[in-house]
């Protein structure tokens, strides 16, 4: 009897699936047909250490190409699962599941997690969360539908990720100037009210329609504010009342969008008036360095959980959280060459993991997106106050 098999549509560096010497693809349990990006873009990084027999390597910026290859594999091989971890692969994976009647997140559900406009329409209909005012931006005249007396607005791609294709505008004239340079055809943009507040994220594992795990953190900086020499990061939240409120929103949102099995990454604003306002949610694991933070705090890899759920395999989510709390600080490229924390300082600073990101930056001194880090440090501490102190010290010592 042949083993179960899955198609894995991958847009990460292949080395993304190895951590601390462990490889998280379940190759001992299933056969995997890998579709990955060019070697130049990391699609085969570390492949020699963890080879797979069935591989397709192609230009993954070309979705038609990707679709052709995935469809061919599914037409002619006994594959009954589709795995996707990267945001840009999730929708195609769902399309393939629907096209070939395979289990897992279907196309309609994936669209609700991917299209920021459709997502908010569903949540508004369900009354699942407080939402910023929003509207489709399919033509310049749509700008007139917004109430400009309320101040700043955000124009962003309905399908964007990592805070790319995002524009802040304060007046109708500014908005008109922005959209003059955008291609509004194809229903790709939306406009919404800017919400002033701290950004939180809630990361979940959903099994058989139940939220089996959720973790709440807050960013150290606005993801849209990435810039050369800047920093980003997150710290886990342990305020019980805030945790309860955010988890309640998370439950309502995921219920309204209808996820059955998978991981999610929800972002929300907490205003100065202590109101929680939904921002967006993705039907995939959190990006950046949040998975290592979750692993250090809760003892399981949330990326591996997504892979195993997509593959139809049981997941183990670890037990109770470890003591203390956890977070990370990341440094974008730019800002100087004399940088870094010597390894001998890690213990004193509470650094439990340093991640040196290869290929960071756009090669011209710029930062490409909100998770385009050069160095990241995962930090543990006894409590939230000590964690922020340690993050501050890491930030100070990083610049030598």
């Amino acid at each position, binding site marked *: 009897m042949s083993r179960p098999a899955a198609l894995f549509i991958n847009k990460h560096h292949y080395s993304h699936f190895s951590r601390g010497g462990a490889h998280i693809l379940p190759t001992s349990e299933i056969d995997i047909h890998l579709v990955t990006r060019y070697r130049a873009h990391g699609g085969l990084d570390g492949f020699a250490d963890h080879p797979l027999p069935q591989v*397709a390597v192609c230009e993954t910026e070309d979705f038609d190409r990707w679709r052709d290859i995935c469809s061919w594999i599914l037409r*002619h091989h006994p594959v009954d699962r589709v795995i996707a971890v990267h945001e840009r692969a999730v929708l195609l994976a769902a399309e393939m599941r629907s096209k070939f009647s395979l289990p897992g997140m279907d196309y309609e559900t994936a669209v609700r997690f991917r299209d920021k406009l459709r997502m908010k329409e569903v949540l508004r209909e369900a009354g699942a969360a407080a939402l910023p005012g929003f509207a489709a931006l399919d033509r310049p005249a749509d700008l007139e539908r917004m109430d400009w007396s309320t101040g700043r607005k955000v124009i962003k791609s309905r399908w964007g990720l990592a805070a790319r294709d995002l524009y802040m505008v304060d007046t109708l004239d500014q908005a008109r100037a922005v959209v003059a340079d955008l291609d509004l055809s194809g229903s790709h943009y939306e406009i919404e009210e800017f919400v002033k507040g701290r950004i939180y994220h809630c990361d979940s594992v959903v099994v058989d329609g139940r939220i089996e795990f959720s973790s709440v953190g807050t960013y150290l900086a606005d993801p849209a504010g990435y810039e050369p020499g800047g920093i980003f990061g997150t710290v886990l939240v342990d305020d019980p009342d805030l945790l309860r409120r955010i988890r309640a929103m998370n439950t309502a949102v995921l219920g309204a969008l209808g996820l059955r099995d998978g991981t999610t990454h929800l972002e929300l604003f907490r205003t100065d008036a202590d109101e929680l306002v939904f921002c967006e949610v993705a039907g995939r694991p959190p990006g950046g360095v949040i998975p290592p933070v979750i692993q250090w705090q809760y003892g399981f890899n949330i990326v591996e959980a997504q892979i195993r759920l997509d593959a139809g395999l049981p997941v183990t989510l670890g037990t109770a959280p470890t003591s203390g709390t956890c977070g990370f600080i990341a440094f974008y490229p730019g800002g100087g060459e004399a940088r870094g924390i010597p390894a001998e300082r890690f213990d004193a600073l509470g650094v439990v993991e340093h991640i040196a990101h290869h290929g960071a930056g756009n090669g011209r001194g710029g930062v490409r997106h909100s998770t385009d880090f050069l160095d990241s440090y995962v930090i543990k501490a006894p409590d939230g106050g000590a964690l922020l102190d340690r993050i501050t010290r890491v930030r100070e010592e990083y610049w030598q």
Partner: protein
Amino acid sequence: MVGTDTPGGTVGRTLVLIDATVPVARAAHGLGCRVALVQRPGAPVHELAEDHTDYYSVDFGPDPSAHAPDTAAHATTAGPAAFADFVQSVLRPLDPWAVLSLTGAGALPAATAAALLGAVGAPVGAVRALAAAGDPEVAAGELVLRAHTFTVDGDHRWIAAVPEGRPAMPPEHLLPERVLPPEEHRAALAALTGLLDAAALPAGPALVRLAVRDGRARVLTAAHGTGTDDENDLIRRLTGFDLTDHSLRWPFGAPAGTDREAGR
């Protein structure tokens, strides 16, 4: 376009290479064209693929030109229909200029793909005719030679004769006219030419195993393709003729230059 040698160079064109070894893939990447590799599952993609190589694992089956429907035997592999679908849905969008293979196992899949795509490649009929030729039984006292030929515009050249089962020899011992006495050389050359003419191979390499004895020569087996990488390297070093390079370049009308005129 099948089987023709079309000038124009490699830049901006796509070469699909089936069942490549690492040295052959490396040579293909040196041509300056886009390269797509089609390999059996389990091939070392990390050694074969370069920065922008398209790469596909395909179990291309025993005879992908048959276009037969999938059968139970192919339940877990890509059978003939699957291969044809692969060619049409995955390779065609690459708009390949040529589809080649230098191995016996890849020759028929490559020819089939070239025919389906209208790309440059060996004709399916020629590849089949070569594969069906000969009687592999070796009689006592027969000298077995691995004859390497290269064809340009239907003109077959005998590049090297490697006696089977013997260690590497001085250069002259790979030159067909030095390996064999005149009478047997003429007989062997006639056998090769007859075979390649009958197969109507218009271009590219062939590897023919010949049995020679008492002034007579006969074909044991034949295939469109070259020998092993070690064998090709030996031939290149001892005769100056780079079979790998010529076998990859001929579809682009830009042969690397023949260092030695051999044959006919």
